[in-house]
């Protein structure tokens, strides 16, 4: 079976375009946000980070 033969009959080109743009938009939000967060934590350095009261995991009931 070739790829072209396995395409869903109900799927249209605009469906694919919309979903691709949608996923693209979400990853464009998520990935920079994650990188920025990690960069900020790294920039703050380990000294201050350990000054935080209690790590989240230890506070779980």
């Amino acid at each position, binding site marked *: 079976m070739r790829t072209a033969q396995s395409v*869903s009959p109900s799927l249209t080109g605009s*469906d694919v375009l919309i979903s691709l743009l949608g*996923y693209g938009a*979400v990853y464009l*939000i998520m990935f920079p*946000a994650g990188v920025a*967060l990690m960069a900020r934590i790294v920039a703050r350095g380990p000294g201050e980070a350990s000054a935080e009261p209690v790590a989240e995991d230890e*506070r*779980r*009931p």
Partner: protein
Amino acid sequence: MSLPPFDFVLLWTAILGLGVFFYVLLDGFDLGVGMLMPAASPSEQSTMVASIGPFWDANETWLVLGIGILLAAFPIAHGVVLGALYLPVVAMLIGLMLRGVAFELRVKAQGWHRDLWNWLFWAGSFIASFCQGVMLGRYITGFERGFGYWAFALMVGASLCGGYVLLGATWLILKTEGALQRRARGWARWGLLWVALGVALVSLATPLVSETVRGKWFDFPRTLWLMVFPAATLAAGFMVWRWTGAAQRSGKGQDAKPFCAAVAIFAIAFLGLAYSIFPFVVIDRLTLWDAAAHPTALKALFLGAVIVLPFIVGYTILSYRIFGGKAKANLYD
């Protein structure tokens, strides 16, 4: 004496049905809590997030399980249903992604960043819930095209949001105390009104759209005992209303009642829907037996289910027991 051959299609139908039902119930309450976020103050928001924190991602296991069963046991239905629902499914997944990220990042953010993640958490919860309702509306009308059918699906989408708000608010009654609990009672009543609209809409529309469904419900004298469904729904709705009154005492045993009644409404609606559609998986087009995989495949899959399902049920029960009791705001921040 030999036993009649065991019908694995029926067994897989039951497993699929239970999987979908537990998904709706469990992710329903945490999506509902997400949709209620803008109605609460910042400190209440922390408590609300803490009340679903230990559960929400495990709740989504049931969605993966349901879709997985659909693919493995009913491959033809998987193709037809998910093909027809392509865009609502994509939108739901985008909503769930936004929500999942916002859940993790909102606690790390401060100031307007946190407001932004809170807003994304709300938006993701709302998009996912609304799309699930639209999917339900499209599914029960057999994916018919036309303005009326789409308008119907959009209204079911709005009603399911109301239903999840009901589950979320009654969950908060169970998991919180004080001022937030009192506010949650008001939210629950508000959700209940949407549920009433949704249940009435679906109950009236399905027999009108499908002759098969009409024949099943309006067939005297069977209709008489089928009236148990609307009667039980009304009774459960009445109980939710009664147990969310301003004068309602709080305390052990009292706080769980509204949630149980809300679960009962969902259970009755689900059974009614299952009765309407059975033995079809795509109404009037495809029966469960037409859509099922080869009997040998179903048998082999069952071996997998025997191993996996007890684990899922087990850890679900375990986590709800460990994280029982009232939620505190400082779980995450």
